[in-house]
């Protein structure tokens, strides 16, 4: 099992450091749950409990890498910012989620 764990940690090096931060994982997980509809800025802020600074900068970083895109939508006459995963962002999320699943499975076996 020790060998497997080492291999598991070794595979973590393949994870994308632009994605693998807690806030960015939270954002990608939230957006992935609503594919292809997307989530508004105010919904992300309320549900994740992030400051405007942390939310804005992390969304900006994910947009810069091409993993998230922004659209403007109308809601009860107001303009809202809507964020969606791009296909590349979805692939990165899948890779990160797969590694996390393996990691949790390993911890759950207690061997």
């Amino acid at each position, binding site marked *: 099992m020790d060998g497997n764990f080492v291999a598991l940690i070794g595979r973590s090096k393949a994870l994308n450091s632009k994605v693998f931060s807690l806030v960015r994982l939270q954002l990608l997980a*939230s957006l992935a*749950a*609503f594919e*292809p*509809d*997307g*989530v*508004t800025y*105010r*919904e*992300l802020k*309320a*549900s*994740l409990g992030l400051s405007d600074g942390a939310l804005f900068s992390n969304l900006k970083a994910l947009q810069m890498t091409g993993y998230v895109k922004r659209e403007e*939508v*109308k*809601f*009860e006459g107001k303009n*809202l910012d*809507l964020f969606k995963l791009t296909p590349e962002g979805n692939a990165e999320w899948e890779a990160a989620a797969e590694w996390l699943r393996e990691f949790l499975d390993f911890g759950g076996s207690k061997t």
Partner: protein
Amino acid sequence: MNDKDKVIAWFKRLGFQPKIDNFQDKLIAQKTVYLLQLKGLGTKFHYGFHVRGPYSRELTNELYANRRDFEQGITGIQPSAREEKVLDEFKTLFEMKPSLLEVASSYAYFIASEHLDPVEAIRKVKEVKPFISETNVAVGISRVKEFLFPPSAKDLETARKEHAPWQEAEASTIERDEHEERRNMAG
């Protein structure tokens, strides 16, 4: 009869023709189906609680897979008389307003699925929907209580007992005021 045809029939009765690419329409569709399902109209979409409140991926998949049917109201069925009555009540109460539906469906989820007491459910709604005005929160909760959680005979009896001393006090105050008024007029 499948759930998709049933939902399209509901939407037609509600005068709601969703555009599947429209953010607001998709939100209305999700919340409407959730509340009608809780009312017992018979569909079986699985709902979880996500950043937007109750949300069904199954329903989203149906909306995209049957875009034309939803947008043009194509269905082979008609709502039953009972369903029509419920749908008409739903439309009157919620007016298909997204904010009211957001509040109503989140409150209903906290009560029905998480079994929170009403006070805690209201607190949670305000926590997850801080961007919705206090007025819309109050109206949405009041309407969903009327739609889904009408008071039982036992609740009404408890309320009657609680209010009885106040009503008696009010009646005796009115009686005393009238008596004094008559005495003043006589004097």
